[in-house]
């Protein structure tokens, strides 16, 4: 009983950064922009988030620093890929390389320092309910926020006019432009939203997951978030399934190793990737008309002025 609760808690913690970063990237890609710099924006968010929390003693301020840092990084991308119409793939890769270096520079002075991690919710009575108490009422703010975020994004994309326009930019920027919508401005906001989410996801690592900063601590999570967006067919609902499934298999394979089941650990380590890909591919095949990529994804748009 306690073990099950502990496993669920660990799964939620492992999935949250993936969910936040992937939700941001989903909005970016839905507007027609492919930003491969998620890993770079995350790691800069991690460095700045830790710096903010360490300097002010507040995890909340740290999270804000992370969000701002991620947004600034995404503005570099927007300037290059949208403003100067440079190839998006190249710009995104360069952004990751830049971010890894930059975060090492920013974080150098903070290596080896500790902070008090994000507090967990505690409601007397409710949090103490066996099995579900700590899962539902004992998480840190990031976990609740990530769920609100993905619900909000779903609502925005499918239930508001602005969301419809954003998707229109992603599917056919020429038509959206002809109808008078400011395609580049909309895409810039989408890229900034993606950057803010990546920065927050990065900040989650040193603020809640492992409360210290070390260069390279995102360890490829940005790339996993990118992959999740693709395999969820750019749909928020499937993204949630994918992120939690990935987190769950990651944690369960560690436990399975501890129990000594005897399956080679190399295979177990590959399992989260395999399981997530298989389930999400099956999901998009099972439902008719499973959405494919935004039609204008990754293509450069230069409006005729």
């Amino acid at each position, binding site marked *: 009983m*306690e*073990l099950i609760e*502990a*496993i669920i808690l*660990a799964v939620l913690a*492992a999935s949250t*950064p993936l969910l936040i970063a992937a939700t941001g990237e989903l909005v970016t890609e839905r507007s027609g922009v492919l930003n491969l710099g998620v890993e770079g924006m995350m790691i800069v968010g991690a460095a700045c988030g830790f710096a903010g929390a360490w300097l002010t003693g507040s995890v909340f301020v740290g999270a804000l620093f992370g969000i701002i840092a991620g947004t600034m990084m995404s503005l570099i991308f927007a300037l290059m890929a949208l403003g100067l119409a*440079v*190839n998006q*793939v*190249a*710009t995104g*890769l*360069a952004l990751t*390389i*830049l971010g*890894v*270096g930059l975060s*090492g520079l920013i*974080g*150098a002075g903070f*290596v*080896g320092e*500790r902070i008090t991690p994000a507090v967990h919710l505690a409601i007397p009575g409710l949090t103490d309910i066996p099995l579900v108490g700590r899962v539902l009422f004992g998480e840190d703010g990031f976990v609740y926020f990530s769920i609100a975020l993905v619900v909000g994004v779903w609502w925005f994309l499918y239930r508001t006019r602005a969301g419809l326009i954003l998707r229109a930019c992603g599917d056919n920027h020429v038509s959206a432009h002809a109808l008078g919508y400011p395609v580049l401005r909309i895409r810039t906001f989408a890229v900034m939203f993606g950057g803010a989410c990546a920065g927050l996801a990065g900040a989650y*690592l040193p603020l809640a*997951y*492992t*409360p*210290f900063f*070390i*260069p*390279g*601590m995102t*360890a*490829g*999570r940005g790339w996993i978030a990118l992959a999740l967006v693709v395999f969820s067919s750019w749909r928020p609902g499937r993204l949630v399934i994918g992120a939690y499934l990935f987190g769950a298999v*990651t*944690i369960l394979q*560690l*436990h399975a*190793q*501890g*129990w*000594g089941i*005897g399956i*080679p*650990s*190399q295979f*177990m*380590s590959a399992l989260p990737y395999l399981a997530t890909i298989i389930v999400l591919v099956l999901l998009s095949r099972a439902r008719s008309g499973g959405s494919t990529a935004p039609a204008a994804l990754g293509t450069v748009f230069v409006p005729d002025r």
Partner: protein
Amino acid sequence: MRKSLLALAAGLLLAGSVSAVSAADKLKVGFIYLGPIGDLGWTYQHDLARQALVKELGDQIETTYLENVPEGPDAERSIEQLVRAGNKLIFTTSFGYMDPTLKVAKKYPNVHFEHATGYKRNPNMSTYSARWYQGRYIQGLIAAKMSKSGVLGYIGSFPIPEVVSGINATILAAQTIKPDIKVKIIWANTWFDPGKEADAAKALIDQGADVIMQHTDSPAAMQIASERGKLAFGQDSEMIKFGPKTQLTSILDTWGPYYIERVKAELAGTWKSQDSWGGLDSHMFAMAPYTNMPDEVKKLAEDAQTAITAGKLHPFKCPIVGQDGKPVECKGGDHLDDGQILGMNFYVKGIDDKLPGK
């Protein structure tokens, strides 16, 4: 595609940053590092040793380092860069630099190379490593004494002989205290991923382990153990900052004395290719202070350390029984020989797990 390749190439050039080089006629010594010098683990310890070297011989040498150099063929370019910058003695500090180092060494016979933890040598290329299993043996003694649940948690990186011999040394030592001690082993399949290391530590603790040991590089496991009120051992470097009431001891990589010795030999013109596999006796590594344990456990650890240093106690002394119940052939007289330890690919009896790939 061409654009993205260009961007990658530009980024890679930026990634290996060179520290300042100046002055002539001093001996130039170069270092290739795997991670950033701020990783608080493997590379950090190599750089501490470089700083000790500068402190000792700074008036006769100057040092250069390249950090964040990826293992594999690309390392060759970085090593050659150091050669062309005039370095006459070059330390390549990770296993994966073995073939690139050898290749460059053959190309430049007048430059001397020192490669860490490898097994390929050349007339101008030495290898060096440490007998960390000795430290693991001491940790096993402490762990068995300090564990209340009788279950130890071990986070492995990759199932390679160095890590496997560490696990075996730990268990052999623990069995001398508690014959029925259990160990749970989780392979992270990475050297460095703080999040995953933390998850592995959580899983081990949730499954009943109360002493955590690791063969991965970040202080994440120490931090989790500290949060949960358990005990843990550090890795590579001093990690007590992340668990003031948690760290029992840590195996500290202390390359300083070796680097100083080799540079002195180079200065004196007596440098020769050799294979150094040093243990506690040659100060290739050290044990961090024994903390958070009663005096009798501390004494037990110190006595074991003294005995191992003096050569009176060998962690792999025979008889050793393998997992299959058959005794392991004793090639080194009364203990396993170096070859058996360097190529160790079996678990000893008492480990309930299966070695991956066996």
